[in-house]
């Protein structure tokens, strides 16, 4: 090679060397959070395990993500900030309302504890980690029939997507089992600017019908009110609650279950399920001083699923969705706190259900007959 050739080749080699040393900036994904303020503890814990991932978290914990109107507004703001996925919302009502925005704008939605069938039905971008309300409602009805031998049942439920879904599932199963619905009343839904119902009036009217058991499709606040009223009336009528009652308020005192002794609650997760759940609960309690509820567990798992997809190279909503669909098919199911995740019809179908019982101030398994998965 002559001098002229060197003048051409050497700069070329140098350019190649420099370029190979240059790094392309890694593309980052923007993930939105639409969860209860109390669930941010689970988020903080989950984020520690994803610090190496190119994820920008977009959140506003001051927003009400459960009421329909505010959920819509918040969803639009997240979509405007070009998030590719959202973990949330907290309740079925907020999740269903926001799903309209996410599906219109092509944002992947992963709802930790929304059971409403309206969330995943017909919404190609909305995924849920827990069974839907018809499955849960059937489980509740089966329990009161087989475990409690109830022949007359009173229903109290929130008049929103969550409560109505539970009610429909319960009524259908009770009819099949020929258990009579003695009374049916609904509570105020999750709204903004409206006064909550006085559940005691409704409960008093329902008890006039002499039910054998009460099925409650409500949240922890209503559950406490029911338990308190029944104690005042010294009534031992069994109360069976949907999973919504196992979502605690963020304030530690509100997690005191002493006043709920004997209340039965459907669980999708429990710290006593297995070692993984126990380890998570210990870690959570060590960090924050109180035991996590199932909402925090599923929030943790939802974030883990997102992280798992990003770690696998997913950067767009399409890629994230493709990753979720591939779990248990072309790649192993994702092992989370609440079990293994694989999706069918955009709902994790492997999540187990069992009946919990508050005993000695703690919620543990009651080993009910006819417990579902």
């Amino acid at each position, binding site marked *: 090679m002559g001098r002229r050739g060197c003048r051409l080749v050497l700069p070329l080699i140098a350019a190649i060397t420099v370029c190979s040393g240059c790094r392309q900036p890694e593309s980052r994904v923007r993930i939105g959070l639409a969860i209860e303020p109390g669930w941010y503890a689970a988020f903080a814990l989950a984020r520690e395990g994803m610090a190496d991932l190119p994820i920008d978290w977009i959140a506003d914990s001051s927003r009400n993500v459960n*009421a*329909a*109107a505010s*959920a*819509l*507004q918040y969803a*639009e703001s997240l979509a405007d900030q070009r998030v590719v996925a959202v973990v949330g919302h907290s309740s079925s*009502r907020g999740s*269903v*309302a926001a799903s*309209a*925005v996410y*599906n*219109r704008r092509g944002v992947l939605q992963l709802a930790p504890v929304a059971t409403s069938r*309206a969330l995943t039905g017909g919404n190609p971008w909305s995924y849920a980690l827990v069974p839907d309300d018809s499955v849960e409602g059937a489980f509740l009805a089966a329990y009161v029939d087989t475990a409690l031998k109830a022949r007359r049942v009173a229903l109290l439920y*929130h*008049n*929103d*997507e969550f409560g*109505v879904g539970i*009610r429909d599932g319960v009524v259908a199963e009770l009819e099949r089992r020929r258990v009579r619905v003695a009374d*049916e*009343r*609904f*509570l*105020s*839904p999750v*709204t*903004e*600017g*409206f*006064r909550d*119902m*006085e559940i005691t*009036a*409704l409960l*008093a*009217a*329902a008890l*006039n019908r002499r039910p054998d058991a009460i099925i409650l499709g409500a949240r922890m606040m209503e559950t406490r009110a029911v338990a308190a009223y029944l104690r005042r009336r010294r009534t031992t009528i069994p109360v069976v609650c949907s999973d919504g009652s196992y979502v605690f308020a963020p304030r530690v005192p509100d997690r005191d279950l002493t006043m709920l002794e004997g209340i039965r609650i459907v669980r999708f997760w429990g710290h006593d399920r297995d070692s993984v759940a126990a380890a998570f609960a210990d870690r959570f309690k060590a960090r924050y001083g109180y035991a996590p509820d199932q909402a925090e567990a599923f929030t943790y798992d939802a974030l883990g699923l997102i992280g798992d997809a990003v770690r696998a190279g997913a950067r767009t909503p399409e890629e994230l969705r493709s990753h979720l669909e591939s779990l248990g098919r072309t790649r192993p199911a994702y092992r989370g706190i609440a079990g293994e995740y694989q999706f069918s019809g955009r709902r994790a179908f492997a999540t187990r259900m069992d009946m919990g019982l508050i005993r000695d101030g703690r919620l543990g398994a009651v080993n009910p007959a006819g417990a579902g998965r």
Partner: protein
Amino acid sequence: MKYTVRNRLVVYGAAGVGYLLVLVASLALVAVPAVETVDRSLAPLQGVFVEIAERDRQVLDEIEALDRYVHAPDSALRAPPGRPVPSRAVSPLLSNYGSVLPPAASRELARAEDAVAWIEAAIGEAMALREIGDRRGAEDRLAEIRRNRAELQRHTTRALVLALETGIEARQAFRGSMATLSWLVIGWIVLGAAVWGWIAYDAARHVFVPVGRLEAGISRIAAGDWSEPIPGHFSGELLTVANQFNLMTDTLRERAGRHAQMATAGELLAGMAHELNNPLQAIRGIAELGHGSGGSSAKDWAVVLEQARRAAKLVNDLVRFVRPPVRRVAPVDLNDVVRDGLNLIGFQYQADGITIETELDPRLPPVQADANDLVQVLVNLLGNAHAVLQNGQSSRRKVTVRTWTLGDRVGATVHDSGPGVPEDVRERVFNPFFSTKDRGFGLGLSVARDILRGYGGDVALDRVRDGASFSFWLPASDEAAVASPSAVAHAQPAKGEVFKGRRIVVADDEEAIRSVLARCLERDGAEVRTAAGGVMALELIRQQPPDAVLLDLRMPDLDGTGVYRRVRQVDPDLARRIIFVTGDPSAMDPALGIPADRILSKPVELTAMRDAVRRVLAAG
């Protein structure tokens, strides 16, 4: 790019297609999205309006029902229909329309749905309070429900307004799109007018007008005005057409001129031939008289007579060829046609040392045709063969003419020993204006083929090993052939004083002819008086009516036709005894009705003349 007609048509087509593409693209880009946007915006809005109104009515009904329930007596609470069951609100409107409404309208709708859901729950709570006897509490809840219904209405109204604004915006956008579309349509019209107008103008200027000029030029030339060629104000294909047409016209004009020259030459030749007949008549007559008188000079006179006959035949055949008489289709012997043709062209062969051999079938059936036409065909074939052998270098130059019969066909074949016809020429030899010779029109074989096909026959170029061979044929005729007009009748001279005592007038402006004819008739005993013209002939006839008249046709003062008419007026019997002796029988007026046996062609055989006189005297 050349601006030919073809290219222009391509450009016109491209312009038209481009215009259509602009039209379609405009529709696709503007109109279709506009309509789709309106459909997408307005269709769901209609459903929202209807369902919101329905929901509002339902809520009002339930509140009224609650009002009655709360204020009903205790005894009526449990009786059927009992407690009204409020409906459950699970945001169906939000589920159905949240994705199609604008965000602000969706939020208001969500607040309205929240309000409805709360109202429904509150109705249930109010009923429960009433059931457990808290009537006051129930009334408080009812009042609160009514207040929140106002809140519901506020949110509902705002949602409807926002939805309506969306509809209005959609309509305005649609109007804007329609306005754009209107301008587009105007643009389409203007563009279309420009495109098609340009096409029309360009086509008119560069296609239709030039085609019209070309058509006018062609029509002018077709009408016979060859004074000027088609002007070359054309381009592209039209210029090529005009140039080729002008070239064709020049060629045709040149050939027509040459043809006219040939026709004129033919006419001159025919005229000269007629003039030759007069001296030949004298020579022949004197030779016949000298030969008939015997003596030592009889042989010489016989030679002179034979040559005079030969010369007369040549002249007559030439006249017939150049200016044939009226076509007469009759049974014709092809052997006679061959002989007549060889008489015409045989001298050329002899002069160039080319051998002609004939093989004539003596039992040849006749054919139905005009003999002159067939002679023309044969002379054309012999002329072509002569031209080939004349220019060729063959050491053995020979032409063979053979007549033959094959089935119902009667034909003749002309075979020359020339180089033959090249394979690439064989297909074109019968094409008009095709010729391998330097001279000529190239029409000979084409005309020959047309003549023969007119008679039901044909001509063909045979495939032979050496030379060229042309054969023509016609269908055989059942009728017997008549003798060729040029056949020479060698009748025996009448002896003795056949015409003794007869008075005959001979009128001819040629003194030699008068003398010969008079001497011949006088030798037969006739009393002959001669006239040098028609007037003198009439005077002689008037003075002493003759028994017969020999009348020349062309005379200076009064021609034979004039004499005949005058005599016919006065003495029809004598008119029937007038015999015309003319060098141009075709000049006879057919209206006179003179029979053929009283028309003698110069140079006439004296014996034939005698026979004719004898016939008229016998008939008279």
